[in-house]
């Protein structure tokens, strides 16, 4: 085992458990979808761009967001669905900009395809706006060097992994995932931090992401 740098501050894993809040708001066509997308709270946009990641964590690839899924499966607008699915969530560091781009994509499409406004979802198949209420609490895992960190990554829940990689970066507006932050600032290993930052976590299932992170860290430890 190579000598491992002790962290200035240990990494304290948290977990995030969520409850889905219903808003009673629903869209039956694209104009309503775009109108509501502009108005609903940030928590709604976050929910609909991240729900699939957790609910179908064993599937890959999965439809990346609820908007794209509904537009394709219910309205049958494949071209727009593809554009919505292609919005690269990892490039965004705040919800406001992400929301703006989703709205623009729908509005631009409606300008070019006015007939699309006439497509309506059947009763019961409308788009229902929901939001996430997140509860963040400390998990019983604390790592003070990379080896401990890799070991704990094996045992933390998907919720914990999800929190540090997705939610903390985008929803809490930290701009970077917690793992890269800690590795750079507490262990001083910028190269490893950057390598983890460059991963696009949206293209993995959570189990695959866990394995990938462990592999990258072990590669760093053992060379």
């Amino acid at each position, binding site marked *: 085992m190579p000598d491992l740098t002790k962290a200035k501050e240990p990494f304290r894993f948290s977990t995030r458990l*969520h*409850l889905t809040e219903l808003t*009673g708001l629903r869209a039956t066509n694209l104009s309503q979808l775009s109108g509501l997308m502009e108005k609903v709270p940030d928590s709604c946009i976050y929910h609909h761009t991240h729900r699939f990641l957790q*609910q179908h964590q064993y599937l890959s690839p999965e439809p990346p967001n609820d908007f794209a899924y509904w537009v394709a499966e219910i309205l049958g607008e494949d071209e727009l669905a593809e554009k919505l699915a292609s919005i690269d969530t990892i490039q965004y560091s705040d919800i406001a900009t992400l929301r703006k781009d989703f709205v623009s994509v729908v509005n631009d499409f409606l300008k070019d395809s006015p007939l699309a406004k006439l497509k309506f979802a059947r009763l019961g198949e409308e788009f*229902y706006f929901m*939001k996430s209420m997140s*509860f963040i609490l400390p998990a019983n895992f604390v790592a003070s060097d990379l080896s401990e960190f890799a070991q704990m990554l094996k045992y933390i829940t998907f919720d*914990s992994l999800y929190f540090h990689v997705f939610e903390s970066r985008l929803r809490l507006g930290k701009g970077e995932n917690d793992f890269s932050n800690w590795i750079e600032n507490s262990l001083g290993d910028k190269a490893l931090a950057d390598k983890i930052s460059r991963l696009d976590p949206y293209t993995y299932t959570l189990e695959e992401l866990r394995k990938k992170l462990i592999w990258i860290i072990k590669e760093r430890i053992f060379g």
Partner: protein
Amino acid sequence: MAKLEEYVPIVGQSIIDDLKLLAERLKGRAIQHVNSTAVGGGVAEILTRAVPILKELGIETKWDVIKGGQQFFEVTKKFHNALHGGREEITPNDFEVFLETSQKNIDELDTSADIVFVHDPQPIALVNKRRDNKWIWRCHIDVSSPNQKVWEFLKDYIIKYDSAVFSAPSFSPQLPIRQFLISPSIDPLSDKNKDLPVELIDGVLEKYSIKKDKPIITQISRFDRLKDPLGVIAAYQQVKKYIGCQLILAGGAASDDPEGLEVLNEVKARAKEDKDIHILLLPQNDIEVNALQRASDVIMQKSIREGFGLTVAEALWKGKPVVASNVGGIPLQIKHKYSGLLCHSVEGASFALKQLLSNPEYAKKLGENGREHIRNNFLITRHVKEYMLLFLSLYYKEDIVYL
């Protein structure tokens, strides 16, 4: 009854650890569930499991059942059908009967717990007794297009609660109170869902004189028009023209459902002398229900309306291919052609049945995917976790809460 640690091999240690972490945050708070029946139906079934788990986690929890006579339950059954969008003539006298029994329960039931958790419309008026404690109304019914007269009547009570809970997004109306989405669940260790030895399954088939010489199609549900047992028979009859098969229609009757016997007689009349149709009245015999599901080749749930449709989750958990209507909470459990087949009509149901009976490998794959989907999203451990989060949500207004 199963202990928490027994769920570890099914869901993993970390999920159980999360439950314990949450329970610590609820120490000192007393929870009271109130519903209208101690046995029969999905609500009683969930509470039978959720209450002991919450207690084992150290949360003070009790479960009370309101009292009501036959007249009261006939009225609440009418309410139930009307909320599902059925045509029901609700008279002023019906509302009076409801209010009279509600008042008796208000007078008799102690509702002083920190959090009072009221299930479905029958006990809804108890909220008139609220003091400075927290109240939640849990709606297990599909209220996506309710009879407005009944809905408006109930809404006057609903808005007095702190929060409402619905089982599917399409049930969510616009309300001035917070509302949450919590799907119901099944208990993988209950008599209804635990693994069974082959000898026991064969024994149950023998008891009901069911031979294994033809594929078995089964629908397990109360004898209720909303479960469309006549539609199931019609779909089976269309399949039988091409594929030799047999049909089991099995279910109990809940004590708050006076309509059951009438529907059972209609089903018997429709089945006539077909010896391959087995109509079984199984009052609360969970092991036998489990055995029948496991003995089946395909499970159906051809409901016209559905609060959630837990029998779908039960079948999928057993790795069975399912044909079910695209209503209520069923599409949350079945992704069409991925974890089962959804249908909208008798013809659609019979076509799906034929597909599954003719392609056992395809049927097997759908069942396997379904089992994983249930493991991840519809087991009691997830449900208890969300109930605890719901209790905590009553004390926080923000979307992000640090505990």
